[in-house]
């Protein structure tokens, strides 16, 4: 227990002076960040601020140009492919169509890091898939083809796949960009609840500041590849920070029910 406390103290995931450039274009300036279990961290910022690049680095979809990313204190480079996939689950910004695949088959792919290319699909694998389907309320769709689902259900199926992966980290790159407002709220509430239930560290890129403030425990604001602000939603959603972030005068209203700050374009 003591050891896990220390890990918790230091953060499950740590970015240390991480930079990223594509060719001669610098996309991320040195960025340092800790992610903790049981917390949902939202990444906000204008287009081209490096949000996607940052989470892609954490998911090891790309290699940082310099700096280190550590998971449990170990550099990310040192992890094997499947070993890392057992710790970090990642949903890309554009999920592929997964044509001709049933929901259960897609979710079962989340077990690949555990059974590998040749291993048996065990009873445990089956259970994890069932639980993931249950938790995302997809059990009754399990044998439907992915193509036949609505956008919201499809996105839930991808989340279920990440759950079946049974990782400590969830990384989602704009999971709500194609969803209507009701499905956005469902999706974010689900991710937040899972973060609590399973004591996960979640890192999620969001476009909508108010949505991000409503569901995340902490926000990281990026601009020009730099972290310009970081903290509880109340400390980020305030006129000065938002104007610095988006270059647009914005005002704040308290939420009528919860009192949380809501931004609007002034």
């Amino acid at each position, binding site marked *: 227990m003591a050891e896990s406390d220390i890990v918790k103290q230091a953060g499950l995931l740590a970015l240390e002076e991480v930079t990223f450039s594509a060719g001669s274009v610098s996309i991320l300036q040195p960025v340092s960040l800790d992610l903790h279990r049981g917390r949902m961290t939202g990444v906000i910022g204008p287009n081209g601020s490096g949000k996607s690049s940052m989470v892609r680095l954490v*998911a*090891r*979809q790309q290699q940082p140009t310099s700096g280190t990313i550590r998971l449990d204190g170990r550099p990310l480079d040192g992890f*094997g*492919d*499947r*070993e*890392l*996939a*057992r710790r*970090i*689950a*990642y*949903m*890309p910004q554009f*999920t*592929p*169509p*997964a*044509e*001709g*695949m*049933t929901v259960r*088959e897609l979710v079962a*792919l*989340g077990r*690949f*890091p555990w059974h*590998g*290319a*040749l291993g048996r699909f065990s009873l445990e694998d089956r259970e994890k898939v069932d639980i993931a389907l249950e938790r995302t309320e997809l059990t009754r769709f399990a044998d439907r*083809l992915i*193509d*036949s689902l609505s956008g919201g259900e499809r996105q839930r199926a991808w989340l279920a796949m990440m759950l079946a*992966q049974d990782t400590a980290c969830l990384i989602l790159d704009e999971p709500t960009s194609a969803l209507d407002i009701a499905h956005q709220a469902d999706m974010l509430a689900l991710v937040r609840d899972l973060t609590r239930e399973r004591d996960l560290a979640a890192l999620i890129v969001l476009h909508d500041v108010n949505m991000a403030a409503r569901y995340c425990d902490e926000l990281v604001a990026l601009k020009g590849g730099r972290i310009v602000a970081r903290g509880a939603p109340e400390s980020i959603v305030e006129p000065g920070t938002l104007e610095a972030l988006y270059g647009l005068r914005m005002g704040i209203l308290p939420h009528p029910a919860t009192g949380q700050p809501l931004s609007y374009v002034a």
Partner: protein
Amino acid sequence: MTSRRVLLPWAAMAVLAAVLFAWKVRDAWPVGGDHLQWVILQNAVLPRAAVAILAGAALGLAGLLLQRVLRNALAEPSTLGISAGAQLAMALATLFAPALMIWSVGFVAFTGGIAAVAIILALTWRRGLEPVSVVLAGMMVALTANAASAALILANGDYLFSLFIWGGGSLVQQSWDPAVTIGSRLAIGLAAAILLLRPLAILGLDDASARSLGVALHASRFAIVALAVWIATTVVAAVGVIGFVGLAAPALATLSGARTLGQRVVAAPLIGAILLWLTDGLVQLVSGVGGERLPTGAATALLGGPLLLWILPRLRMMEWPSLSTLMAASRRAARPSAIIVIALVALFGAALAALLIGSGPEGWSVATGSLLADLSQWRAPRIVVAAAAGAMLAAAGVMVQRLTGNPLASPEVLGVGTGAGAGLTAVLLVNAAASLFWQIAGAAAGALGALLLILGVAARGKFGPERLLLGGVAIGAAASAVITAVIAMGTMTSYTLLTWLTGSTAQADATQAWTALALAVMLVAPAFLAVRWLEILPLGGETAKSLGVPLKRARFAVVLLSALMTAAAAMFVGPLSFIGLIAPHLARLVGLGRARDHLLGAVLLGAALMVLSDWLARMVAFPYQLPVGLFASLIGGPYLIYLLSSGARSRH
């Protein structure tokens, strides 16, 4: 400033070509009133240079017009099947209507070329002439026309062989006539292009804008396509197929900074002329005294391949709706194992029919008893070879389609089959009597090279499945130009290659049957070890990576295995068959969706289809034996078209 920098290399190449030409003229210069030398200089050396320049310019112009009108950066006479169609028409006319050939070779060639284009446009009309579909249809028409020409030549022996030397695009001249013909067409074409500059500029936009700007869309489009075909087929009729100049010249003109259409109309023919003149000069330099081993048209293809790979990532292409909507949502079988058993039964049924039922002078007959025992030593090896090849192609098709997540990808479409042919060609060039082992090794190396090249470029240029396909088609065209060129040499190797090209199983013997069977078992079995990868790979690199698939290793293994299977299959049934495209689709269509079922079903169905094709090829035109590859492509072609047109329907 930049324009000066990009003009410099062209000027340098033109000077180099001129120096090579001057060298040649000096060699041929008559000394001491040698009359024969004088004739050679006047009627061979000089017109040859003129033809090179004019044909290059004509092809550059034709390519530019086609690319502009079809809004397709890869449209050109050879990718659109115009050259192959012209060639087939000339072969047919030579055999069945020699009077036509005497009357006007140009007319025959034009008819063939325009027929090829008409077929392609008709096929892809419903998809709005989308570039990928157009080029795929073009490839199909070209492959089928080439195979048909090859079959005609094989059936008629030496008589048609001169035609194939044409095919290689030899620029050797005996008079000024071809130069004059091409030159006059080029002049007319240029004049027309300048007159049509404005509608052409608008036709490069999308249909809606063109229409709203008041252009008579279809009329002008057809007129310009017909003009381009006329120019291109004039070249084919005069000197044969010269690949890549029509493709490269407009692309290089654009890359060299010709921005407006007016600039391109000048630059593309100029660049085409320089390219062909220089290539021809180099060919003459290399060939030296001992006669020419390499026709210029084949040399342009050889140089064009690498050039194309360099161009592809740099081309800006018009964005078209993605192909990923091509596959209609398939239904899934409740019990895949039952479907697989049915596929197995179908395979055995086809094999049994092929073994028992034959066609003779008195119609169809069923062989039994001692007759069967006699016949099966001829029939059984064919059946085994066909089944093994079909199984391997189908497995390779499943793997390539799943690897690229592209329902139109297949070993044939990606140029792997023709790449195998190029490898085989290389082996046969070194040793015309190479053993089966070396032939297969060469074919495998060629197939692997083609596949790695195309996937490497795809990964580096980060282009989507559409460009992957286009690149594959282009590599296939380059490889088949090499094959054509070697066939044009008219040696013993030519016959081996011609037989291979048409995909004949008629000579299959017990050794071949055992080899094919062993290869099929050895190569198809490991594919099943990769089914979990194959399940994940269609979801794309990002997903595969985040699930912990060792991406590089998995991709390489899949590529290697499918290249080997394609090469082995192409060895026995030739480069074209489309079984690798169809069988995976068929398996999906009957409801096999999971990677393992999909693979198993496709293998069985592919084997059954190939056995069936082989049997029909044997039966349909008795006593003649049609080549199985040709026959299979005649079955596969319409399916590809159905696929293209049904994809359009599901989208609208």
